[in-house]
């Protein structure tokens, strides 16, 4: 009887492993800066890469780095909206959930700027992370966020203004 070799979809696409290896770290860091939570960042990045794979396999990704950035931002922000509700519920039940957070997350909490960043509206936070961490231009940021450059400009401006106000108070 002839043996039939079955290959997994991932095994059939070794190139995608290279894509993953090349962009995982950056994707994870963007996700973390947007979400403020390492575990949730990993989850979001995993899901984002699964979605990227589907597109990649069909040959629809010309610029994997840009596409991955966009997928990660979308994934984190859509999860963030759900989490905002979950967190409020968890806080009600437990009083506070910081005791369960990682050492890195607790360290981040001691960083005033980072803490203030996490309190910005989603669009402002995203625009600021992409502009000041990834050093993307306004046009590139707009592309990743799927918004106009005017919205990026306005979101960054208002986000910075709010960060200034928060830092003043503190």
């Amino acid at each position: 009887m002839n043996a039939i070799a079955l290959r997994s979809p991932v095994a059939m696409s070794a190139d995608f492993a290279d894509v993953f290896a090349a962009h995982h770290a950056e994707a994870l860091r963007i996700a973390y800066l947007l979400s403020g939570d390492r575990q949730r960042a990993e989850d979001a990045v995993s899901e984002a890469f699964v979605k990227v794979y589907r597109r990649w396999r069909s040959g629809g990704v010309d610029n994997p780095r840009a596409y991955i950035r966009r997928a990660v931002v979308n994934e984190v922000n859509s999860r963030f909206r759900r989490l905002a509700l979950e967190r409020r519920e968890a806080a009600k039940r437990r009083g506070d959930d910081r005791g369960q957070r990682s050492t890195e997350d607790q360290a981040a909490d001691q960083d005033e700027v980072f803490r203030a960043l996490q309190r910005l509206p989603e669009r402002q936070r995203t625009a600021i992370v992409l502009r000041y961490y990834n050093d993307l231009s306004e046009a590139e940021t707009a592309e990743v966020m799927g918004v106009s450059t005017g919205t990026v400009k306005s979101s960054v401006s208002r986000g910075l203004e709010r960060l200034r106000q928060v830092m003043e108070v503190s």
Partner: protein
Amino acid sequence: MPADIERMLRESLEARAQDVEPDAETWNRVQSRIRRQRTFRLALAGVSATAAVLVAIVVVPGLIDRPDVVFPGPAAPTDPDPVPGPADGCTSPADVAAVYSSQGDLWKACVGGGAHLLYGSSDIDENPAVSPDGIHVLFTSWRDSAPVIAHVYLSTGASTVLGGGELPAFAPDGRVAWVQQADGDRAFIVGGQLFSEPEFEIPVDGRVRRLAWDTVDDHLLYETGEGAVWVARPESGELLRIDDPERTYSSPAVAPDGTIAVIAVDEGGSYELGYLDRAVLAGAEPGYRPVVDLPMLDDFSEPFLAPAGYVWAEQVGDMEHRWVPRDELAWLVGSPGWVSLLREDGERVGLAMEAEMLAPAMNPAAVLGEREGDEPLYLEPQAVPHNVEVTRQRIHAAARAGDFGGLHALMVEEFSWSFGGNLDRDEAIAYLRDNPELLDVIAGLLELPYGVVDPVEPEYFVWPWVFTDPEANWPELRDRLVAAVGEQQVGDYEEHGEYLGWRVGIDRDGVWRYFIAGD
């Protein structure tokens, strides 16, 4: 206060990012999820294949009438959703209406009335555009993640799908343009007469986000999100970029008097409504005039702008407004969840609609005031029962669009298509496919007055009116009847005093019973 918030921000982000090291297990998780999804898809494919076999056995006869859409773009299924209602009752002497999308449905608001559901479905429906005569509404409907252009009549909500595309816009002469997004950063602006083949196709770079037709000349304005406004000329396909080193532009909109407005964001990130000199359309340097500062709210982003024309909103309750005619030009401006009526002098009224209001579109004819001329309006609502009117409009739209599937769905099973006992809608459709010129006859008849065949059970409404009232409107509407059915049938009518030519019958319940000629 920090000396340099931007420097602190960069340092903080870099430090926090370096805290995070990639987890080697993530790759395994990604592979595992991909495998699971593949397994699920294979299982689903098996189920689908089984279902497909069953469908082929049971439903194949119905498949012969898949839509054969004339409107450009890939064929899309005819909208199977029932007509939402009631949608009549939102009318006013001035016929001023705004159509807007809210939570994926289309609503309309009229002077003197509240907001009414115009069209609701399980799909996301957005970006409505109202025709200059106030009769038609086109909108983007997302079906299986692909956008299609759908049509709905403003008076009844009767709808049909026309073809692939998004962001429809009407010209003042009734032509329509829309966007077909290609793969990558490429799109086509296409357009022509409503219900017809496209007359032009303009390739453009980028993803078109807003499209507006100039109300004075033959220009289309659009933006792709990079801060500039583009002008496209349908006649030549020429493109012109309008940008400004000091600000970014978005949401171009053109008022009935030709005023070109944009939302501008300055270097400080502030929003304002401003006007562009019309000379930019001829290639002149942008002459920009700021008009009104817009609020800097956290959720004010991705703004939209639409001409509201010469109306204003009077508050009549805590959450209600009544729209009233006014001499000054007004704009509808806002972002998701927030919309205001705004005047050039800065007066503003927040609109409390039924829900959030997205991408509103005004009836441009109405905002210009009185309609010009005495020409009978195209498919004006007729004084028939609501169900009959809905069916009339649906048949009309399907006939104009060449949508055989839509026509088939509207016919009663025992549809009479030939005098003498041919009662079969499948045969009727086959006959129409062989004689497609009859689609124009159907549509033309339904634009004429009707008559009532009474007493019969059920009561029938018949187009044209001369079948039941041979002397009415004669000879005033002779030319229109000739345009619908041809000189020969009208000549026979005049010779014998009895009209036995093509006619359409809909019963009181809104069931399309026949399209026949003879006696």
